[in-house]
């Protein structure tokens, strides 16, 4: 599972999908997660990174990360392994 290669993420949180022309806005943690997903980082590793950096707990990040990835899928910004 990985952010599609053609998706552009700017430093200010502006996300652009050239395939559809749609644009999005993400908050800093959202951007951070997208950058990690782009590199193909496994979700468990993403959870650990966020947990180390931010004042939160494992169940919260687990729930929020899962929800965030669902939304990325809904916006078709993610490609699953083995799928186009």
């Amino acid at each position, binding site marked *: 599972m990985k952010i599609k290669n053609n998706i552009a993420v700017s430093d200010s949180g502006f996300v652009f999908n050239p395939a559809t022309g749609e*644009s*999005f806005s993400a*908050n800093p*943690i959202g951007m951070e*997660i997208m950058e990690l997903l782009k590199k193909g980082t496994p979700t468990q590793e993403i959870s650990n990174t966020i947990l180390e950096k931010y004042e939160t707990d494992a169940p*919260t990040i687990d729930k929020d990360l899962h*929800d965030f990835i669902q939304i990325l899928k809904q916006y078709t910004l993610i490609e699953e392994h083995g799928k186009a």
Partner: protein
Amino acid sequence: MEKQRYERPMIKKLESNMPNKFGMRTEYRPMTHIDNVAVKDLIDEYGSPLFVISEKTIRNNIRSARKAFETRYPKVQFAWSYKTNYLDAVCRTFHQEGSWAEVVSGFEYDKALHNGVDGSKIIFNGPDKTEEDLNKAIKNNSLIHIDHLDELYAISEIAPGLNKKAQVAIRVNMDTGIYPMWDRFGFNYENGQAWDALNKIMRTDAMELVGLHTHIGTFMLSPNAYAVAAGKLADLAIGIKDKYGHEIKYIDMGGGFASKNKLKGTYLPGTDINPSVNDFAEAITGALINSNFKPDNLPLLILETGRALIDDAANLLGTVISNKRLSDGRRSTILDVGVNILFTSFWYDHKITPAQPFTQYAEDTVLYGPLCMNIDVIRENISLPLLNKGDHVVIQHVGAYNMTQWMQFITLRPRIVMIDPENNVHVIRERETLDRLLEFEKVPDHLKTFDL
């Protein structure tokens, strides 16, 4: 390394030129304190949800309302509308500020007496006054505002037995150019019912006609309707003087002034578009002064303003129970505040502000209450900063009707505290307990035991 404050990840599709029902983001600063008391401390000490009433705001409101009328008209009297909020501490604050009591039931009447209001300063409105209520009100020289002919006949039968003249007014309903016209209470002006009732009163010794009363509607957005109503009551009063040589003592314009809440379906916030008390004062006093009353003999003007004096004096504190995602991708947040204690969420888009710092990111959200009932929706659509489980919110302008129309349903009703002008916090109503509720119930002997 110190950890950074966590905010849940968020991504939002940008849709330029697409208006949506969630509207613009409205919250820019957290509401961390109420009258210098920290919201967090209030919840830690008194629990969540929690109603918080500001005594200072109540006093400011009634003082500025009095000023609005007293600078325009020589004789003004406010009467606190008990049904709007009849907590003793609230009523007594208004009584300390000089307000009489305006009640609409025997229960409220007794509450006013219990609060120490002299019977002659209680205005008794409403369609349901029992024989016992009327007896008490006549004996105490209370101002009885007659709603229908059956009440009028009941008073003519009761008063002679008490060797008292009942002090009465009639409630008059009328066309003031607004919709809906409230014609279910009192006697109609246009079709002659009002005159019929007045003639009956003037021709009996059982009653003394002391005033005329109207109450044209609720959450009124048109001050001019009050000018029309005041003009019509002035015409009646002058007609009575011409016909019977009798002068009434007061004109009671009732209540109904809009507060600063935002009604559902309106686009701009109530603070921007709803008329102020000054606008209503200008309309009413202008109409009375321009009527045919002699300038040196104007009647007392009574106002029964409720909502506009108490709404912004109370906040409801709540806590986030959970964030969920709905099937269509919308964000939903569950609060511990339900419609059972926030009845007015059926009428208003309440302003809701987080009680802790937040970033500039916001999400379109549906706000639900904690009840396992589909109707439990606090806001169908609101653009809110990103809230985490356990975060606190402040629901604003909840002072009118919620603390009287709330119900014990599914959950127990929470505490109410009042912050005094020196910023001391007082519990003015305790939270309900199961034991207290069970005191009302009785179980028949044959249902006391069972085997499962």
